[in-house]
């Protein structure tokens, strides 16, 4: 707070708004142009992951509202169960290809380490969300998996912190806690991508960093916008 600020400017809402506008002005938040190097199929898999996540959330809400007798017995219930399962398959498929692409691009360059770390944490929490989904099926498969998981978690010394054989606990993790974490982290990840831009290829970064024979650092600073 500086000396010249009015009471309105000192309010926390005004400070948050000013900071948000500085970090993510509208043209950065919703850009209508991207660098030329983004015109590649490898850049599609992040958006595909988000599309699959949306399908997971919608089908999961329907499954949760209708209940296990519906998703196990009725034809339409099995259909939505299948939609949920295959959305998860596509989610992880696309996320892994996205991860490989970003790893080989060195997507943490140019001040983007936060974007990389948030993405990695989202990946790990997604695995936990998927595992608790196995435990929430309400069938013998889920019972078998829960006892196997309990043995495994006990073996690594973390079995006392949560109980994978407790259906209510695992269901709460699966339908509330972990999805909220995945969605929030995904939103944060996307905002970080918007703020810092898409990392440039190594060759473009080297050209941008060494205009007059200077040694190139290749730190992935954004090239000029197309």
């Amino acid at each position, binding site marked *: 707070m500086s000396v010249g600020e009015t009471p309105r400017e000192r309010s926390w809402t005004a400070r948050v708004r000013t900071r948000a506008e500085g970090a993510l002005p509208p043209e950065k938040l919703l850009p209508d142009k991207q660098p*030329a190097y983004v*015109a*590649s*199929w*490898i850049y*599609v*898999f992040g958006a595909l992951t988000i599309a699959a996540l949306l399908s997971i959330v919608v089908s999961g809400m329907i499954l949760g509202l209708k209940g296990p007798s519906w998703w196990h017995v009725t034809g339409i219930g099995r259909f939505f169960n299948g939609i949920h399962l295959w959305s998860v*398959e596509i989610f992880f*498929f696309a996320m*892994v*290809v996205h991860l*490989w*692409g970003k790893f080989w691009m060195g997507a943490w360059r140019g001040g983007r380490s936060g974007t990389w770390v948030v993405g990695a944490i989202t990946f790990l929490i997604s695995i936990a969300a998927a595992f608790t989904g196995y435990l929430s099926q309400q069938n013998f498969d889920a019972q078998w998996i829960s006892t196997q998981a309990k043995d495994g978690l006990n073996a690594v010394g973390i079995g006392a912190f949560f109980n994978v054989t407790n259906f209510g606990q695992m269901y709460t993790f699966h339908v509330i806690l972990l999805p909220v974490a995945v969605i929030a982290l995904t939103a944060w990840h996307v905002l970080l991508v918007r703020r810092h831009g898409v990392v440039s290829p190594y060759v473009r970064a080297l050209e941008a960093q060494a205009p007059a024979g200077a040694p190139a650092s290749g730190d992935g600073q954004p090239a*000029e916008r*197309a």
Partner: protein
Amino acid sequence: MAGLATGALATTPLGAVFDLSGVPRYVHWHFFLMSVPNLLVIALMIVVFFVAILLPFPHRRAQP
């Protein structure tokens, strides 16, 4: 590499080339143990990764 042939055969001509509904086959080689469906998904991910890099993107505009 030795596979454990316990998978059920597809029952219809239109069934999946690889039957993913029956008891899965496993590939077991020394410490490595993985079901064929999981192995196929990983192989497909690698294929898709290289295709995504090599396949030209449509509607590419001529830009510097």
